[in-house]
């Protein structure tokens, strides 16, 4: 047989064959090919033989050639009940054997899942606001931006009464609208008893635009007639001591509201507003009432901006297109700025955004920061990730211990598929256990959290009652399943991939293979932790800054009482107010008492078109108004910069005769005066009247530092529905309050005595920020803790593996310090990398948060250094405690072992 180069079969088909053909078939196929080839060569044409050879190989590209060889051994199915039982048994034994390790692992998971569940409840609740309305996606609030000389002077939800009715008339897209007027706290009087409750005047479509169900009464008519009132269920119980059977009997009963001389008729009882509603009213009164008490202008006026409107669009209406028609609408009704003296722009704000994404002035609803909610969500995600990463790191780090088990199992015939299942079932078991414990812990911690953040949270928010409805539990279940699988997969694959021969021969030492995975996971954990530490740190700096910043007035020990709202105003009112103040000042502990229409922390009303007299500039400016008495500036220690304080003679029972005013420095500057001295003694024009600027006071923060200082005009007007501020100069405040109450009851009988302390009230503006700070710092701490737990477990493991090395080093003369350094530096390197990555992330996040404040701290480099040092300290403390223990161990002991 010739076997030279010319007649040998071509090589490439063979190579191809070996690629696609499964190994066990190659031999016989090659044999057949070669046999046929040489037969064909012998029978004549070599070319033809070569061609047929190639064709034969190509013809073998068929399913039979790809099939894997059938195993000669029986193939038990993957999941047999007795094996599964065995997996769980081994898992439990393993957990039991390494108690400390399992504890660290389980703690991380339980804490992580608990934190995540608690935060998710909060997020779900906040995001679910106003979603209970039937057509919530079609309801919009009209917002109104006001410009003067091109400058935005008001960005509000408050607007003119005529806006919504005119829009309804002009725009086909609007299906319905409701108007809300005069929202606030009302005194409901029944048989000499006074009940205070939040409420508003709303038009008769309120109950059809929104979904606030009535228990009794016809929703179409209950708010039609003037002086109709619908009360909530809890008010029916509180005021009328009614049981559900009595509700129908309440209809037609009368009740008095504030100072209105005529009684209101109860026309219906409604369910209490859900907690997740940005509007929170216990009583609704008919809008027609306002037409009687305030005047006809409330129906369609365009002069005073005092109402809030919500519109419901028709299904399928294009909001963007509708908004484009608003500029023309504004020109039509306001004729440029002829009607109000300013340019009016209107927008539609989706109801969904009213709670979380609303930065408007004159807000009537409950508002929270959407940024805060998203931040919490991110923290929750971080915590959960960190917990799962801990699981991954700890289980793979321990792999050496399990390597022998894997080897023996493999020798006994386990496939890697079975081993993967085994380790997955272990992670499933641990995660399930953690989940059950986490739910128990969540239920236990719920009341504390609810009290702290003043929200009615419960697990039901995650099972269909909150945001996303029924999708929420499904999505959560998906995320948890995915997390459990992913965190279980890596260790399962790493462990099942061990080679049985290596492991059992003992040549298998340390698993350095997966080390970079573990290291990058640690870096992720620490990056997240450091970003959270920095964020929390800066949030707290800002909160501290706001608490301690000089506000421009002194509110220490100022007791404020609400004015006697139920006392009717008459010509003697000013004398009675002054008499009350004189009486108050007779109390030894009272230093000075003052009356004002408003106090700090509330947005003041604004007026437009203040014009300086003697200047050529004919355009008016906008001021906030604050009616005060002469003692006001002294009570709050506000500095008089120029001119004089008010005198009793400046005020007059006839408001038209009052012509003296005081400005704050910002207002004086806005009028064009260089400074306080230049403004004092000058005049301005407002409301068709000339006013004398008798004095100028320094600027102060009327509201929280989130708001800029406003130009304010002070006028010596009095009101009975304002406030009395009483500066007390003793520590015995309780006694002083009692004395003040005595005088109040004597002089203003029939009024409720309501009081608060100015500083507490003012700082309440930061309540949401404070809660945010507390909650986010608590959970950031948790995140850091879990991450440290992970580094603790990981370092204890690597150190245990290096016991012998440490022993040898000590024998050769290494010091404890050098060993500690050796063991810690690996981890510290990772922490340093994390700081480098985490700092810019934190910087960006905090910058976003700080943007909400008009007055804020600067972000400085040392803040990052402090946070970084803190992280290093924590990491070092965690690692070094174990490193030192390993380093001081007697080398004789460690070298003897094994």
């Amino acid at each position: 047989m010739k076997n030279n180069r010319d007649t040998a079969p071509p090589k490439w088909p063979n190579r191809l064959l070996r690629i696609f053909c499964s190994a066990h078939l190659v031999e016989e196929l090659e044999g057949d090919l070669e046999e046929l080839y040489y037969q064909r060569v012998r029978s004549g044409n070599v070319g033809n033989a070569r061609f047929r050879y190639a064709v034969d190989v190509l013809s073998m590209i068929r399913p039979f050639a790809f099939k894997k060889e059938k195993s000669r051994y029986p193939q038990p199915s993957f999941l047999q009940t007795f094996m599964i039982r065995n997996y769980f048994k081994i898992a439990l034994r393993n957990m039991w054997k390494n108690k400390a390790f399992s504890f660290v692992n389980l703690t991380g998971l339980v804490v992580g899942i608990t934190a995540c569940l608690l935060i998710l409840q909060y997020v779900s609740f906040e995001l679910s606001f106003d979603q209970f309305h039937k057509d919530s996606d079609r309801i919009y609030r009209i917002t109104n931006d006001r410009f003067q000389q091109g400058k935005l002077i008001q960005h509000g939800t408050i607007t003119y009464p005529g806006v919504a009715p005119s829009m309804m008339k002009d725009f086909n897209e609007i299906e319905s609208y409701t108007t809300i007027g005069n929202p606030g706290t009302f005194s409901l009087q029944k048989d000499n008893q006074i009940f205070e409750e939040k409420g508003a005047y709303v038009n008769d479509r309120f109950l059809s635009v929104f979904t606030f169900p009535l228990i009794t009464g016809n929703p179409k008519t209950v708010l039609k007639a003037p002086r109709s009132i619908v009360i909530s269920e809890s008010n029916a119980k509180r005021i009328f001591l009614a049981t559900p059977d009595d509700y129908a009997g309440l209809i037609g009963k009368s009740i008095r509201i504030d100072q209105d001389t005529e009684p209101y008729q109860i026309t219906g009882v409604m369910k209490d507003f859900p907690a997740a509603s940005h509007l929170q009213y216990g009583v609704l009164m008919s809008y027609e009432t306002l037409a009687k008490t305030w005047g006809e202008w409330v129906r369609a006026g365009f002069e005073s901006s005092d109402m809030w409107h919500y519109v419901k669009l028709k299904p399928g209406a294009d909001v963007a297109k509708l908004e484009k028609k608003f500029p023309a609408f504004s020109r039509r009704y306001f004729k440029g700025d002829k009607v109000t003296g300013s340019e009016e722009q209107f927008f539609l704000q989706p109801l969904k955004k009213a709670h979380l994404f609303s930065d408007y002035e004159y807000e009537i609803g409950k508002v929270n920061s959407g940024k805060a909610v998203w931040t919490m969500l991110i923290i929750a995600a971080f915590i959960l990730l960190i917990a799962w990463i801990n699981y991954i790191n700890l289980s793979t780090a321990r792999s050496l211990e399990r390597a022998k088990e894997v080897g023996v199992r493999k020798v006994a015939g386990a496939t890697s598929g079975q081993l993967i299942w085994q380790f997955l079932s272990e992670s499933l078991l641990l995660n399930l256990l953690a989940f059950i414990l986490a739910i128990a812990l969540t239920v236990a911690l719920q009341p504390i959290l609810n009290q702290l953040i003043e929200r009615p949270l419960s697990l039901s928010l995650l099972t269909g009652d909150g945001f996303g409805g029924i999708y929420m539990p499904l999505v959560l279940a998906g995320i948890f399943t995915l997390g459990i699988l992913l965190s279980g997969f890596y260790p399962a694959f790493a462990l099942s991939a061990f080679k049985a021969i290596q492991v059992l021969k003992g040549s298998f030492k340390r698993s350095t293979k997966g080390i970079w995975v573990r290291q990058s996971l640690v870096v992720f954990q620490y990056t997240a932790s450091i970003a959270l530490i920095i964020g929390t740190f800066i949030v707290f700096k800002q909160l501290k800054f706001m608490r301690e910043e000089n506000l421009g007035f002194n509110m220490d020990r100022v007791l404020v009482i609400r004015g006697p709202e139920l006392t009717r105003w008459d010509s003697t009112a000013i004398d009675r107010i002054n008499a009350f103040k004189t009486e108050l000042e007779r109390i030894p502990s009272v230093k000075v008492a003052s009356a004002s229409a408003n106090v700090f922390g509330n947005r003041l009303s604004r007026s437009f078109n203040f014009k300086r007299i003697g200047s050529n500039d004919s355009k008016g400016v906008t001021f906030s108004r604050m009616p005060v008495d002469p003692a006001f500036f002294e009570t709050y220690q506000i500095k008089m910069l120029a001119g004089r304080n008010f005198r009793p003679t400046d005020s007059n029972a006839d408001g038209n005769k009052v012509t003296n005013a005081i400005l704050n420095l910002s207002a004086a500057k806005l009028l064009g005066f260089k400074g306080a001295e230049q403004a004092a003694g000058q005049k301005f024009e407002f409301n068709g009247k000339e006013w004398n600027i008798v004095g100028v006071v320094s600027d102060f923060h009327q509201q929280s530092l989130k708001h800029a200082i406003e130009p304010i005009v002070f006028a010596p007007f009095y009101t009975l529905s304002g406030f009395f501020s009483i500066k007390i100069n003793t520590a015995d405040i309780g006694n002083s309050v009692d004395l003040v109450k005595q005088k109040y009851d004597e002089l203003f009988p029939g009024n409720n005595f309501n009081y608060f302390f100015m500083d507490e009230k003012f700082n309440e503006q930061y309540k949401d920020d404070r809660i945010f700070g507390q909650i986010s710092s608590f959970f950031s701490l948790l995140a850091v803790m879990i991450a440290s737990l992970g580094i603790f477990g990981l370092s204890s493991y690597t150190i245990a593996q290096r016991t012998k090395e440490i022993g040898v080093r000590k024998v050769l003369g290494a010091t404890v310090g050098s060993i500690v350094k050796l063991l810690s530096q690996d981890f510290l390197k990772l922490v340093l990398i994390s700081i480098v990555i985490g700092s810019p992330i934190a910087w960006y996040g905090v910058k976003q948060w700080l943007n909400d404040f008009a007055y804020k701290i600067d972000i400085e480099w040392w803040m990052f250094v402090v946070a970084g040092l803190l992280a290093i300290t924590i990491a070092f403390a965690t690692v070094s405690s174990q490193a030192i223990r390993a380093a001081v161990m007697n080398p004789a002991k460690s070298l003897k072992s094994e």
Partner: protein
Amino acid sequence: MKGTYLGEFEEIVLLAVAILAGDAYGAAITNEIEQQMGRSVNLGAVHASLHRLEEKGLLSSRMGGATAERGGRSKRLFTVTMAGTRALDTIREIRNRMWDNIPKPA
């Protein structure tokens, strides 16, 4: 097990294995078919049929009989099983019956 329906080519391969009685392997079967049918056959097609027939239980195989001609590689030797023989008989009977039923020209 798949049905015992035989395709035309499968039937031919099965017959070739029967003819070669004990010395049936890929190359020999291919040669046998080429000679009997007078047309060229791809080795791949033959092997595919052999695998199918073995799956159907009509053939069984064992390894053996390496020769120098094939570079010392062993052959897979096929034999017809009882089921295979029965299948061939059935086909033959059916064919015969059908032939018999053709009306004879007068």
